[in-house]
């Protein structure tokens, strides 16, 4: 079994030691980072620190050095973002820190995505994502999208203020089975229920799975509006999407 001391990068070691509390997460991250190359650990460190310039440079250098795009994404970018996600969930960091790390991840993904797209790797599934009608807040949704893409999903981003009809049309156009709805306002949350209703009216409810999230949204509210799952944050969103993808594939 891997030990913390097996991880070469001192910063990563101290992150795990200081911020990870759940035994299974400690074990998983120790195993992960002790396996990956020092260069990938460095990318993860830069991403956790929110250094987009360094992530951009190191990603290019790794690709130029022959490291595979998938390896950089999984072992550097997503591994680093995983630590950020845990720190966010546990309240060690807040949205600004996550946004800065997300910006760094985007800098790296800008090099990775074209390569993955050209290589024809099959996505796990297609997710239609949107902030519900009347709501123009998209930070949480955008973080989820980034993590879903990193997690192997194709994501169609409908943006903000998305009407139920737009969700339905997107599902039909892209033959998608997963839908993610976000809301920040208690005043717009009811539009999640209206969207689910629109799928019932269109005869599509049974062929899709709904994920809901957003600061005021709760698992109970998700059940009330007829959603199939609730994600507290971007990490949970990816886990939920993977679970629901199995149901509909």
């Amino acid at each position, binding site marked *: 079994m891997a030990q913390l001391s097996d991880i070469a990068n001192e910063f990563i070691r101290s992150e795990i030691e200081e911020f990870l509390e759940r035994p299974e997460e400690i074990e998983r991250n120790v195993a992960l980072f002790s396996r990956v190359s020092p260069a990938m650990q460095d990318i993860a460190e830069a991403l956790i620190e*929110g250094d987009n310039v360094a992530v951009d440079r190191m990603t290019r250098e790794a690709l130029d050095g022959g490291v595979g795009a998938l390896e950089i994404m999984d072992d550097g970018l997503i591994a680093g973002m995983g630590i950020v996600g845990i720190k966010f969930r546990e*309240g060690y*960091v*807040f*949205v*600004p*820190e996550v*946004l*800065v790390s997300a*910006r760094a991840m985007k800098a790296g993904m800008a090099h990775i995505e074209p390569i993955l797209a050209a290589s024809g790797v099959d996505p796990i599934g297609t997710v239609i994502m949107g902030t519900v*009608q*009347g*709501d*123009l*807040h998209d*930070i949480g949704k*955008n973080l989820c999208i980034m993590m879903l893409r990193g997690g192997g999903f194709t994501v169609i981003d409908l943006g903000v*203020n998305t009407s139920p009809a737009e969700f339905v049309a997107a599902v039909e156009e892209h033959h998608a089975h997963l839908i993610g709805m976000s809301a920040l*306002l*208690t*005043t*717009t*949350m*009811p539009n999640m229920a209206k969207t689910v209703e629109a799928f019932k009216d269109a005869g599509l409810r049974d062929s899709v799975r709904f994920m809901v999230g957003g*600061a*005021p*949204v*709760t698992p*109970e*509210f998700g059940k*009330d509006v007829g959603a199939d799952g609730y994600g507290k944050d971007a990490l949970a969103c990816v886990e939920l999407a993977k679970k629901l993808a199995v149901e509909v594939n």
Partner: protein
Amino acid sequence: MGGAWKGLAISPAKVKRRGENFTRLTGEWMTPRRRFLSALYGGRVDKVPAMTLSSVITLDSMEIADAWFPEAHLDAEKMARLAATAHEELGLDTIMPVFHSQLEADALDAATWWGTVDNWPATDDHVLTDPEDFKIPSDYLKRPSFEAALGAIRLLRKRYPDVGIVGKVYGPWSVGYHLVGIENFLMDTILDPDKIRRYLEVLLPASMMSAHAQLEAGADAVMWADHANRELVSPETYRDFLLEMHKGVTVEMGGPSIFHCCGETTDRIDYFAEAGWDCFHFESQVDPHVAKEIAGERMSLMGNINNPTTLFSGTYEDTYEACMKVLEAGINGIAPEGSVPLGTKIDVLRALADSARDYSDTHRPDGRLVVHDPPPAGNGG
């Protein structure tokens, strides 16, 4: 006023309002306005107030008032008529005429989408990238959003001299979200904190002008929102960027101040109290007992009634029960935690005032009403 005071001697009175009956308690001796203001300062009340400190506008109330979104946002008469349903139809002790969050941002040239009958207004484009480019327009308080809001406050003051009128101001942090974009604004708290401080400096006068204008128009108190929520930023961010500024705001505002911050705010209530806010309007994620323990006598607490689960999805009975639980915690007044969804049923919202009345009726020390004796005859009403 002597005539009104005689009301103490009569049995519970039925007060007819638009076909609805509101039962008064025996011995009520405060007007809703006095009750609200006294509670705001943690003072004696004859009954725990039930209020709106956000919007309680619903599709039902639009129909009753025949004043509809989005027109009511920019028409003083419609705004006043619609806002008044909070008192007329729901029996609440306050009326809050500004329903949306765009008052300052719209007058500062943010691109506002005024919504639809069943959707709220929002900013759909951000106009500011450099604090040095910001300037308050010379006709700022004459812009349409202010004309409507200030006009509505004046009308309501005239029509409801005995009801609490609450103004609404978005502080520089929240206006910054509208003008700069929330993502850019939040990232710069880390990447360029001096730039954020500069934004706050230049935006603050716009919020202060709004507060002063609303108080001058007749608002009894101003609800000031700066959304430094736990869902977004750390308590230290509030401390480092806003605490000192808010200390100045509470001194300079010139009227009773109610602070609003969404979400789970337990970890920053102490800072809010330190800032000198008279009252904190707080959400249901916060345990009211814990909030009371932290705030102590420094700041009163109002709100705490859950919107999505209780008011929107629940029944009258669910809401009544939820209100009773919050009232048992001993906060200074109940109100929805934030603006209620437009599809909320008006009958459910009536549980707010009913529960406050019944709670007060069953909590009479020595058989009297909630706290303290009424004032001496001749000084009442």
